[in-house]
């Protein structure tokens, strides 16, 4: 489906304040801080990205690099001590950051919904699955109980669970079915964007493949846009159009998944890909990245990856690398690529 089709096929009218022609989601210079007893943690620092209609964006990076925080701050579901310090999150050109909780509620779930990490924890253990899926329909859309139950049954059908299982309690479903139920819940209000926070973690490989296939199929059929947060690069390679590699709260490299995976530019991306098993290469051992991510209460002044980077230069330890955009759509924040390269549009093989 093209962008125009997706917008004209929407179940709900566009938000009134929507700017015509604005991209679906545009995040600019987003910074999130967590207030701690001994200082504040800059969990996300100047992250920008863009998501088009029907596109799937994968956010990759190791634990604690700010991928989940970035996604949670889109719907402002941060822990109590987390605050968006600066930047903008524009949905259809509407900036969500200055909105109050009440104003934001209109966009939550109806425009941006989530598939939470760990379905068992995100489901109420003593409520029937059907009732839980019906909850957003009842609460958000004000549908009657019977109507929302009916819709919940349809949604279960859509994600491949027999309707009769609506009566089951979460513990009576398998891990894969629970995850499917979470996806059904995310789709309840026909959102434009679904954020998947590690949707396949803790599932075995077969089920993982099924869930990814389901997401892919739903994206095609319903014209969804996906933001997939994962540390499993194979998941992104399989499902995403674009990939954003984050390190210590900043974007290291972002671009079309195909380009980034075949020709990684940032040393961190390269290391990350080398740390991943590759059936085509004859390697017995995997590369490891020495050291640990920096303490985000007190990050290194220059490039945050510099202390662990084999190619670090003096400038890396002092100056924050600017983002450089290449002709193939990839942008990289690394001093190995001076700004002049971008203009030349040099594309490595």
């Amino acid at each position, binding site marked *: 489906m093209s962008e125009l089709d997706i917008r004209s096929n929407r179940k709900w009218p566009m938000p009134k304040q929507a700017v015509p022609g604005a991209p679906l989601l545009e995040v600019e210079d987003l910074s999130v801080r967590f207030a701690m007893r001994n200082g504040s943690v800059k969990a996300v620092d100047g992250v920008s990205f863009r998501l088009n209609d029907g596109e799937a964006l994968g956010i990759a990076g190791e634990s604690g690099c700010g991928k989940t925080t970035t996604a949670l701050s889109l*719907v402002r*579901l941060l822990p109590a001590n987390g605050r968006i310090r600066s930047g903008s999150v524009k949905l259809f050109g509407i900036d969500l950051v200055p909105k109050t909780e009440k104003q934001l*509620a209109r966009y*939550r*779930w109806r425009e941006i919904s*989530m598939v*939470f*990490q*760990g379905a068992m*924890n*995100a*489901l*109420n*253990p*003593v*409520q*029937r699955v*059907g009732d*839980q899926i019906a*909850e*957003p329909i009842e*609460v*958000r859309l004000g549908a009657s109980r*019977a109507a929302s*139950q*009916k819709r919940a*049954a349809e949604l279960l059908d859509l994600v491949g669970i027999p*309707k*009769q299982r*609506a*009566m089951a*309690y979460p*513990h*009576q479903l398998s891990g894969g079915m629970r995850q499917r139920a979470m996806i059904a*819940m995310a789709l309840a209000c026909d959102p434009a964007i679904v954020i998947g926070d590690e949707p396949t973690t803790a599932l075995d490989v077969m089920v993982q493949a099924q869930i990814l296939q389901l997401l892919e199929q739903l994206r095609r059929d319903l014209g969804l846009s996906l933001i997939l947060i994962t540390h499993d690069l194979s998941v992104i390679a399989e499902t995403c159009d674009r990939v954003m590699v984050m390190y210590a709260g900043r974007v290291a490299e972002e671009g079309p998944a195909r380009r980034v995976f075949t020709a990684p530019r940032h040393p961190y991306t390269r290391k990350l890909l080398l740390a991943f098993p590759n059936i085509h290469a004859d390697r017995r051992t995997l590369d490891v990245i020495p050291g640990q991510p920096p303490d985000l209460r007190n990050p290194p002044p220059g490039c945050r990856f510099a202390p662990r980077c084999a190619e670090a230069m003096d400038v890396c330890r002092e100056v924050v690398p600017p983002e450089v955009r290449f002709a193939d759509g990839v942008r990289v924040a690394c001093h190995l690529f001076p700004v002049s390269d971008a203009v030349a549009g040099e594309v490595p093989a």
Partner: protein
Amino acid sequence: MSAATTDPAGVNGPAGPAPVVIHRQRFRGLRESLGRFSTRTDGLVGLGILLVFAVLAIAPALFVGPLETVVTATGGVLEPPSMAHVFGTDEMGRDMLNLTVHGARISMIIGLLATVITVAVGALVGIVAGYSGGRLDNALMRVTDFFLVLPTFVLAIILAPILLDIIGPEAELFGIRATLLVIVLVIGLTSWATTARVIRSQVLSIKERMFVDRARVIGSGSGRIMRVHILPNVVNLIIAQAVLTFAFAVFVETTLAFIGLGDPFAPSWGQVLNAAQSAGAPGLGAWWYIVPPAACVVLVVLAFTLLGNALDDILNPKSGSRR
């Protein structure tokens, strides 16, 4: 399931998935729970005992005639059980069976009312304090702490005469004498705090679970979250507290009556035990004066415990295997 009976002779055709009617399934869930309950011997025994006492409490006169007084007493002084008086008589010649059966009403009413007050207030305060946190939690917990350290009996001794003076000892509310209401009030006042504390601590852990966050993003308000997501998760605690409170309430009522703070015109089991003690029944070997009311207290508390256990298992979808 009776798919065949709802579709006589296969009018809709034998093939194809059965149409799903959510409402019918809803009742199926209820039926399932009832079915599970019917397999629980302990629950049925508890329910049976309580039903017997409930019937006795509702219409005691139907079984043993009106409450006997000194004037209408039918037997001799402290007669042991005989055909005429199955449970014997007390020191004034009143039939013990008559007294015990009439005592059921008072003891059950006090136990139930005190339990309802305690559990309702305790659960409400516990859930609201635990879920809201912050200042409201602090304020509610300081109040709770105050009631937590109030000694039941001291409060009862002070409150009973004051309240009686205010509302008058002859006043009645829904046919319950004021003295009894004071006892209910005192038990409720002194025991809701424990329930509130226990439930709050559980709510503190439940509200950190992800499904509560999820409900919040979905758009459920605090009220709905507390009602739909928190309350069902603490129901087992509430039932356990209710059982404990009922036992406690019956004991407290018995004790209050025993030390003379009961209502002399309302023969609760505690009141009868008090009379037995002051008549010197233990010394005289008049066991029939003590055993019937005491056995009733034990039976009712036991029945509540059995029923509570069974309900806990059935209402908690996780415990026990379904089907």
